[in-house]
């Protein structure tokens, strides 16, 4: 028998589904980025114990355009992960996805019912990202 399992590839593309299925992947990638950043962050801030000189040296290392862009990516990932996560918490506890009801075609299923919330939070995330671009690069 041929194993037709989609695997990790299926997280990125599996067909014509709503945007939520791909937010699942984005949520995962941003989360992965954030946990790696958190571990690095704990290590970098521990240089503080070495006094002002060690701190200045550590801050000097991370004060380059690449690290600045990395910082920007962390803020983007954090804002997206937080707001999308808020939607996940609300829906996983049964809010914004409706109640069981007799189905009539065309079906109004839970993914559609939470979609306005999804759009609202994603617009909010976009605003947050624009503000952080302004602060990191323009101000």
């Amino acid at each position: 028998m041929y194993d037709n399992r989609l695997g990790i590839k299926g997280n990125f593309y599996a067909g014509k589904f709503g945007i939520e299925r791909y937010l699942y992947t984005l949520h995962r990638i941003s989360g992965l980025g954030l946990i790696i950043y958190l571990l690095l962050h704990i290590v970098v801030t521990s240089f503080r114990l070495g006094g002002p000189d060690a701190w200045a040296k550590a801050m000097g290392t991370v004060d380059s355009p690449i690290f600045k862009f990395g910082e920007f990516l962390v803020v983007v990932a954090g804002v997206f992960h937080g707001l999308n996560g808020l939607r996940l918490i609300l829906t996983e506890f049964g809010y914004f996805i409706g109640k069981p009801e007799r189905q009539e075609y065309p079906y109004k299923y839970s993914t559609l019912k939470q979609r306005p919330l999804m759009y609202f939070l994603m617009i909010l995330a976009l605003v947050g990202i624009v503000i952080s671009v302004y602060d990191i690069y323009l101000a």
Partner: protein
Amino acid sequence: MSESKLWFLFIVAALILLVFLGIHLGYMHLDNILGVNDPLDYNNVKTRGQDTFWLVSYLILLVAALYHGMYGLRTILLEYFPQNLKFINGLIGIIGFLALVLGSYVVIYSYIGG
């Protein structure tokens, strides 16, 4: 502990992060807009580290972020490598514990006057 309890703590940690990480990110990254002094200057870092408000919020942030992050990392590893449950649990436990020890040592040492 049953998986439902671990997951519930993961959600509680997420809600804590939503508040505390919001404050932390806003303070550290919106410094230009909010007009706070350079948050990365050593003296400012030192002053913050000796403030009880920041001590408590750093500790809460550390515990919540590590728990939420390490549980999430475990979820991802578990779903992609479902045959290695024990190994993944061990790995996550060790990394999380080391990071917690280092992080809380730095925060508490700074508070006492490092």
